Each structure stands twice: as C-alpha cells, then as structure tokens.
C-alpha cells in the first residue's frame, strides 16, 4: 500500500514535467498540423544548455532557465522559419522527416560537444530530500512540479487571456478561416513553435536533474511524448496534461509494485486498448473530411 502511494506521488510530480514537454508538442501539432519529432532532442538540448550554464558559469538551474528559455524560444522561431515554413505540400509527413533530421543534427552536435558519456545536472536540492513516512522524495521533484505548474499556468493565461491567444486558438480551429479574418497565421505559427521549444527547454532542465542523460536519450523521450499526445488526443492540451499524469502514475506504480522493466509496457498496452475503443484518444477531435 505504501508503495502504491509512493508511486502515485512520484508519478504526479514527474507527470507534471512531462505535461510541460508534451504541451509544447501538442500545441505545435494543433496550430500547424505538423508533428515535431525533434521535441525529444530539443529537450535534451535544453538539458545540456542548463548543464553548461551550471558547470561553466555556476548559474543555478532554475535561474538559468531565464537564459535558456529565451534562447530556445529564438532557436524555435528560427527552426520554424528556416525548415518548416518552406514546406508547401505533404506538410505533415515532410515535417516529420525534417524535424527528425533536426533531431539527428542536434544529437550528432551534442555527441561532438559532450561525448556520449552519461551526465546528470547537479544542484544542492537534487540530492536533499523530504521524508514522508519511510519514503524519501528529492526536493527537485517538488520544485520541478511547481515550475511546471507555473509555466503551464502561464501558458493558460497566454492562450485564454491575451489577444495572441485568440489568434492562436483561431488558427488551431481553422487555419484558412483565421487567415481570412486577418490573422497572420505564419507569425502565430513561428511564435507557437518557439513557445513549444522553450517549454521543452524548461522540461529538459528538470528531466536532466531527475534522470541521467546523454545525446541518445531523445529517442526514449520522444516515444513517451508521442504516446502521451496520442493518448490525450492530438492537439488537446487538457488531454496532454491528463495523459502525462496518468502515464507517469501508472508507470511509477508498476515500477515500484511489480518491476521497472514492465513499467512502460503497461502504459503502452493501455494505449492500445484505448485506441481500440476510442481511436481519437481521450480528448481528441474526430478527424474527418476537412476540405
């Protein structure tokens, strides 16, 4: 029983961080109809940026986000402008290939710069922990969760309380109609991509502090993120949030109560069951004829 409670707590705390990374992915899909399979690599890139700031300049991990997130935002805008915007036909599939190529280049570049040795972000609060009963919880999980909730709250305000948010949601609903009423959809797309990548950087910092990583870690990450956004329904932020929490809770409970080896498999099996019953995921829109 104690094990299950522990699993639920760590699951919720790490799930919040995954929600951060997945919301970037699902937002980009919703607005631009493209699937950014480079999101995992961008998360790892963010983790390495925090690593450099901390090792070379001795900047705190959380303060460092004030530097890494704007950098990654600009990087995202640049990527969108240079590689996504030129795609005029077969956007969905070509965008997957393009973002995969970007992931490969990032992976290779990080391999050159940092070798493939496994590293982990270090900070005082990474090693200290709370004690709950006879169960220890590292501070970083709690701080990371709080950070995720703050950023997701900020995202909510951006989407639902600003003029840009209106434009973004309009572009999500109908790209053509949004263009017709004078919304600069290309600008919205670029900013959305940048926001998604900046969220990846924040998620990457927490990921890097709670997991050891190397440049190849992005395959593992992107597979989980893709599963999360399918489970929640592609393009649905609420779905991504609930699916991340659900996935990590199930995974951590299975890992603690049964075996870490089967932890992810249980979630993947659940995904297959959900898809059989509800092919569009939990909160997805029905995909139909959109002409």
């Amino acid at each position, binding site marked *: 029983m104690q094990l299950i409670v522990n699993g639920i707590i760590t699951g919720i705390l790490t799930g919040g961080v995954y929600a951060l990374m997945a919301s970037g992915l699902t937002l980009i899909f919703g607005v631009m109809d493209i699937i950014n399979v480079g999101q995992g690599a961008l998360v790892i890139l963010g983790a390495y940026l925090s690593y450099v700031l901390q090792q070379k300049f001795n900047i705190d991990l959380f303060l460092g986000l004030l530097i890494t997130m704007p950098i990654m935002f600009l990087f995202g805008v640049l990527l969108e402008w240079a590689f996504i915007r030129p795609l005029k036909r077969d956007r969905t599939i070509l965008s997957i290939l393009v973002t995969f*190529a970007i992931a490969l280049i990032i992976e290779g570049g990080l391999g050159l710069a940092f070798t493939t040795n496994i590293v982990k972000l270090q900070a005082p609060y990474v090693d200290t922990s709370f004690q709950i009963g006879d169960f220890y919880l590292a501070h970083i999980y709690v701080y990371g969760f709080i950070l995720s909730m703050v950023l997701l709250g900020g995202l909510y305000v951006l989407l639902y309380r600003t003029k840009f948010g209106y434009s973004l949601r309009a572009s999500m609903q109908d790209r053509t109609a949004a263009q017709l009423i004078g919304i600069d959809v290309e600008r919205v797309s670029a900013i959305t991509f940048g926001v998604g990548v900046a969220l990846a950087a924040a998620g990457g910092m927490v990921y890097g502090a709670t997991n050891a990583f190397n440049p190849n870690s992005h*395959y593992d990450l992107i597979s989980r993120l893709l599963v999360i956004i399918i489970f929640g329904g592609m393009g649905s932020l609420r779905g991504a949030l609930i699916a991340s929490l659900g996935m990590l809770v199930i995974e951590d409970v299975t890992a603690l109560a049964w075996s870490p080896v089967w932890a992810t498999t249980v979630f993947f099996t659940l995904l297959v069951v959900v898809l059989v019953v509800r092919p569009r995921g939990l909160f997805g829109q029905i995909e139909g004829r959109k002409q």
Partner: protein
Amino acid sequence: MRTFKLIGLIALLIVTIAFPQVFSNPATTTVAVFTLLYATATTAWNIFSGYTGYIALGHAAYFGVGAYAMAIMCQDWHVPAGYSPFLLLPLAGLIAALIAIPLGWISLRTRKHTFVVITIAMFFIMQLMAYNLRSITNGSTGLSLPIPSEWGGYFFNVPFYYTTLVMLLLALGVSWWVRNSKFGLGLLAIRDDEDRALGLGVRTSSSKLIVFVISAFFVGMVGALHAYFVGSIFPAFAFDPLFDVALALMTFLGGLGTLSGPILGALILEPAQQYFSLQFSQHGYYQIIYGILFLAIILLLPEGIIPTLSKYWLKWKAAHDGTKNAPALAEVIGQENLIPAKSSGTKDGVNP
C-alpha cells in the same frame, strides 16, 4: 516506345545479374546487398504508403519481427548454415505479416495524421518488447545466427545478392500488379479522397489493411535476410528508428507512389549512407552529415526525382511535338501536373 522500354528493362536486369561477377570485390558486393535489401524494403513500403497516402513510420517493427523470427527459428530448429536459412525467409515474412494484422487494424482506424504517430508508437512498443521478453529474445544481449563459413572470401556475398534480387523482383511484381489493377485504383482513390472512395463503393478498410499486411510481409523478409547476412541481432539494431525514416526518405527522394522511384532512392541513398558511416564513423559527424543530407533532399526536391523528371519530360515532349495543339498541351500539363505521383497533400486542409 514500348519496345524501347522493354529492351531497357532487360538490359537493366542483365546488368544487375552480372554485377557481382564483374565487381567481385567483397566490399563492393556488401554495399550492393545492402542496397538491394533497402530497395526491396522501400518498394514494399511504397506499396502501402505510396498508393494509399497513409505514411507509415513504423515498418522497422516488421523488419525487427522478421529478423527475430529468423534468428529464433534457426536457433530452435538447429538450422545449419548454408542455403537452408533462405528457405525460412517466406516463413519469417509470414510471421511479420501475422503481427501486422492486429497492429494494422488498430492503427488504420485513425486518419492520416494520427496514423503516422500511432505507427511510430507501435514501433517503440515492439522495440520495448524485444528488450523485455528476455525468454524469447535474450534481451539486450541479442541472438546470433548461423554463419555460412564455407562461403568464405569472394563468394560469401553472392548467394545473399541473388536471394535479395529475387525478393526485389517479387516485390516489384506485386507493386506493378497493385498499380495496374482495379484494387490498386481503389487505393489511389483512397489517397485522393477517402470518403468519396468509400461512397463510390471502394472497400477502404479492408483494402488498406491488405496492402499494409503485404508490405509488412516483404519488410519482414528483408529483416530476416538482413539478420542472416549480418550474423547477429540485438534490439537496438533490429528495431532501428533510422530504418523507418530511411524508407520514407528514400521513397520521397525517388518519388512517392511511383513504381521505380523507391528503388532509385535506395540506389542513391543506401551507398551514400554506407560510405558516410565508413568515412565518418566517429560519433557525431555521421548523424550531422546524414541530417543535413536529409534536409537538403526534402527542401530542394520535395516531389522526388521521378515525378520531377517526368514532368520535365512531358513538357519537353509537348513542346517538341510540332503539332498544332502542342502549346495547349504543355499548358495543360503545367497546370494539371499530370504525373502518376500527384500527391494529395492539400486534401487535408493543411495548405489550402
């Protein structure tokens, strides 16, 4: 024109058959075997994705299933090295096809965008299985296959070369048949407008599933032969995400939905990939170069070589026909883009 084409095809076949006799250097024939393997896999992939417009990015799952099926059969039945493992190839393909039936059924319940992501997820599930089902797959240590040591030296690659060539011709035959049958016409209708095709009486669900399973069958055979050729398998190699993307990239380079495009793409990219991985095996450089190559192809040649060439050829022909309606024809071709691989990218409201 027809006779020209026929003579050209026969000459090409003779060149392919004679190739390992002329260039018998093992380094060259090894690259040739890999190239033919990829050509078979891309042709099979194109039978599903090229004709139906549903882009599957999880075919490495069937590659891996075929590879593991081959290794396990060889191990459990004590198959001796030599020609007998070749006889197991159809069986390995069949096993991959059997696995593809439920996976295809589940993923094909969704439409194009979600389908792409689900195939990727399915691929990762299968990779995880290879790691976790230790009793069958031996976990991350992997399995080894019998090595035909009596074929040493120059002869080693030759049986593999011709077996792969037979597989390629079979896959090409199926692809040609599908392209020219009423069934294939239904698939193309699905690509252009699925709901209208359904309304006109095309059995969309079963058609999609059938070609999905056919392409998984061939990819499974490729995986099995690849495993036997390399001699050992482990999860990260048998279920390689690069394989998924390589199939799509090669097909896009050659021309999606054309008969010869996938083969041309494999002929260009696979030797290049082998060369890069040899030259820049130091970690990092290889991925960077491959990634840049990727970007260059997609951004510069999004339609693929064959469709681009055939568009120019039709224009040139129309311009040099000398008949009075030639300019009009050229105009029509320019507008309507009369190429076989006319894609349906705009049908999703993506880029109206």
